[in-house]
């Protein structure tokens, strides 16, 4: 029997390492795997008996003796309560995994396990049997497009860098996953680092680069650790370095840790940061393919893009292109989070609908409140309302809603989320993250944030919506880079689909979702109140009065709207409106 514990960052945070230690005490030595993507069920213990898999979920330390007994005696009754339900198994069964194919299955710290899964065979076949042009042609056939957000055809970028004159070229991986709500790149690096390395080496061969660089977020220490370890192992095996697989192709590797700046997801800003400067975007053209890192021809793709490459080489461009829609080929990974029942990583072929992801795989809402919207593309994207739930996952179709495919963050919201608050949240983010180079972005986002703050405080004025829209278009036109050009999207989409909510804030001074604390009032329903005094005792400002077994009353003048009484009441007697 082989025992595997998922140990991505989420798994460890949920207690996976403690479970492993507890199992060790029972003399069971479980091996480490990355993240299977069923984050809502962590910690997960997989028990392989030959090929038969028993998956245990939400395991805690105290379950270790029962698991040990099952392993030693085969008595399944001991662990029956931990076995994953059929319904939860569907979360994975309904997916098609290419980029994530090894995640949560192999040990990311052992190159042998990657090699066992046909690892590095794609690289070998490229180096020994294909010309760089042929490799680019396969990627062209596959229709692979940049998974970081822009969706630009990968082959086109590779070809441009290939065509660029110069001996010294750089192949760069953007692992600065800054989009709040997206974590697939972290999962790939933590769970299957060799897949990234192989994809990058193939890319380096295709464009003719001798240097590969990974720019990874400093906030992902585990990913950096596993990637470093993987690079060392690959080096020992001669997969990185000089004369790889005995050919005349040589490539070295370098990891650079980012220092926390969202704008560094923009490729020229990333290059500035790699060179040790402030991460401020450069004017384009020249594009990085002509003049990038150290002004040499450079090609930048993101982690998920590279994670598809080895599979495409091994299975052919046609197999990849057979999945998806006319304009969007292959699969895409989504990080599904928020108010959804089953949150985690979902990889599905393009062409499925948002409904497939959120309801069929994600299981719908976790509370009884109805689905309201899904936020896609992070600060550059937008909110897609419930009425468009059947939108097809395709670069164009998603773009038409005003949101974007983005890097694949999907934050699901129910009726308790305020859409004006959501727009404010993102503007707060972009205003802080604006590098300050362009006036429109630097000052425009700030002004928009101030207006949104006013509106959520009940100080909105007639004409604010129109002014917001005007500013949005001005910033879109006036900003140099993608950050500024897309920063207005969260505001534009929420105005487009939830204008009534803006109007309720501005005209009626009400927050329909009940989230903006300045616009809500708490009161006590006298019929439901049992007079237990719990709220009165817990009110930090003594705004609640009443006697035992008699309905209590909130003094609105004293109330600071902290919500304590609302969350503490056992009889749902406190009303928020």
């Amino acid at each position, binding site marked *: 029997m082989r025992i595997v514990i998922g140990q991505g*960052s*989420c798994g*460890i*945070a*949920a207690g996976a390492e403690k479970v492993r230690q507890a199992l060790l005490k029972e003399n069971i030595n479980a091996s480490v795997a990355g993240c299977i993507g069923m*984050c*809502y069920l*962590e910690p997960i213990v997989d028990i392989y008996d030959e090929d038969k898999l028993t998956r245990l979920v939400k395991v805690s330390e105290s379950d270790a003796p029962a698991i040990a007994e099952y392993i030693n005696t085969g008595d399944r009754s001991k662990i029956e309560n931990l076995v994953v339900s059929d319904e939860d198994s569907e979360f994975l069964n309904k997916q098609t995994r290419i980029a994530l194919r090894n995640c949560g299955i192999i040990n990311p710290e052992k190159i042998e396990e990657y090699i066992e899964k046909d690892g590095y065979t794609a690289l070998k076949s490229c180096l020994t049997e294909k010309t760089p042009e042929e490799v680019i042609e396969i990627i062209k056939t596959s229709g692979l497009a940049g998974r970081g957000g822009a969706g630009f055809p990968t082959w086109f970028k590779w070809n441009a860098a290939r065509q660029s004159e110069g001996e010294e070229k750089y192949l760069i991986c953007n692992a600065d*996953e*800054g*989009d*709040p*709500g*997206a*974590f697939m790149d*972290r999962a790939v690096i933590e769970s299957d680092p060799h897949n990234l390395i192989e994809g990058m080496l193939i890319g380096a061969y295709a464009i003719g680069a001798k240097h590969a660089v990974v720019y990874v977020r*400093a*906030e*992902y*220490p585990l990913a950096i650790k596993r990637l470093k370890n993987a690079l060392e192992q690959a080096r020992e095996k001669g997969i990185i370095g000089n004369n790889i697989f005995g050919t005349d192709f040589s490539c070295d590797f370098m990891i*650079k*840790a*980012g*220092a*926390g*700046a*969202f704008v560094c997801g923009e490729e020229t800003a990333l290059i500035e*940061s*790699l*060179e*040790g*400067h*402030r*991460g401020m975007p450069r004017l384009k053209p020249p594009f990085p393919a002509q003049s990038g890192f*150290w002004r040499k021809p450079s090609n930048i793709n993101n982690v998920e893009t590279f994670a598809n490459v080895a599979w495409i080489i091994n299975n052919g461009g046609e197999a990849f292109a057979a999945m998806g829609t006319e304009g969007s080929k292959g699969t895409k990974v989504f*990080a599904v*989070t*928020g*108010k959804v029942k089953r*949150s*985690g990583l979902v990889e599905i072929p393009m062409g499925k609908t948002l409904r497939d992801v959120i309801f069929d795989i994600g299981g719908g809402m976790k509370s009884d409140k109805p689905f309201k919207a899904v*936020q896609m593309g*992070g600060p550059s994207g937008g909110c897609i309302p419930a009425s468009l739930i059947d939108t097809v996952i395709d670069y164009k179709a998603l773009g038409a809603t005003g949101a974007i495919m983005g890097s694949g*963050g999907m*934050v*699901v*919201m129910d009726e308790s*989320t305020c859409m004006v608050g*959501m727009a404010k*949240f*993102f503007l707060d*983010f972009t205003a802080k*993250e604006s*590098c300050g180079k362009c006036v429109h972005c630097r000052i425009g986002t700030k002004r928009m944030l101030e207006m949104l703050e006013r509106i959520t405080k009940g100080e909105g004025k007639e004409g604010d919506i129109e002014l917001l829209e005007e500013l949005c278009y001005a910033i879109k036109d006036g900003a140099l880079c993608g950050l500024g050009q897309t920063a207005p999207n969260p505001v534009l989409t929420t105005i487009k689909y939830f204008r009534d909510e803006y109007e309720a804030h501005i005209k009626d001074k009400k927050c329909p979702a009940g989230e903006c604390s300045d616009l809500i009032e708490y009161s006590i329903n006298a019929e439901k109140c049992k007079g237990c005094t719990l709220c009165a005792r817990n009110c930090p400002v003594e705004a609640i009065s009443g006697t035992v077994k008699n309905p209590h009353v909130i003094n609105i003048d004293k109330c600071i709207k*902290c*919500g304590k009484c609302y*969350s503490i009441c056992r009889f749902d007697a406190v009303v928020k409106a």
Partner: protein
Amino acid sequence: MNDNIDLSLLSGVLDEYAAVKGSLITILQHTQDIYGYLPKEAIELISERTGIATSEIMGVGTFYTQFRFEPVGKYLIMLCQGTACHVNGSELILQTIKDELGIDDGQTTEDGLFSLKCVACLGCCSLSPVMMVNEDTYGSLTPDKTKKILKELREAAV
């Protein structure tokens, strides 16, 4: 507090990177690992060894959220401000921490025990709301759970 900055701790880092072009951010990261922040004396030494003006070093240092110019407490609380955390109530957690510790974002408690920093997405969205305290991640936070964690940390420090 600056009397005890031991600049010799930096020599290894500077020997390795001072002459390598494009290494300023790497040097600053190592410096912060050593001292917990970027002391003024260290910045001056880096400038001397790399030939990069202190103004430029400050420009880079202040650009990135990772760098700090003040010492931090024993426990650095990094509260995630990602979208999923926002939707799942990180605001309430922030308020709880502020109330419990009496500090704002970017401040340190008087006893030097806790520093609070609101950070961009930590990538543990399924466990939202999330915070990291030094290297440890705490997920599915509620106000009560947060108070309990802070209490335990405070007790552990004594």
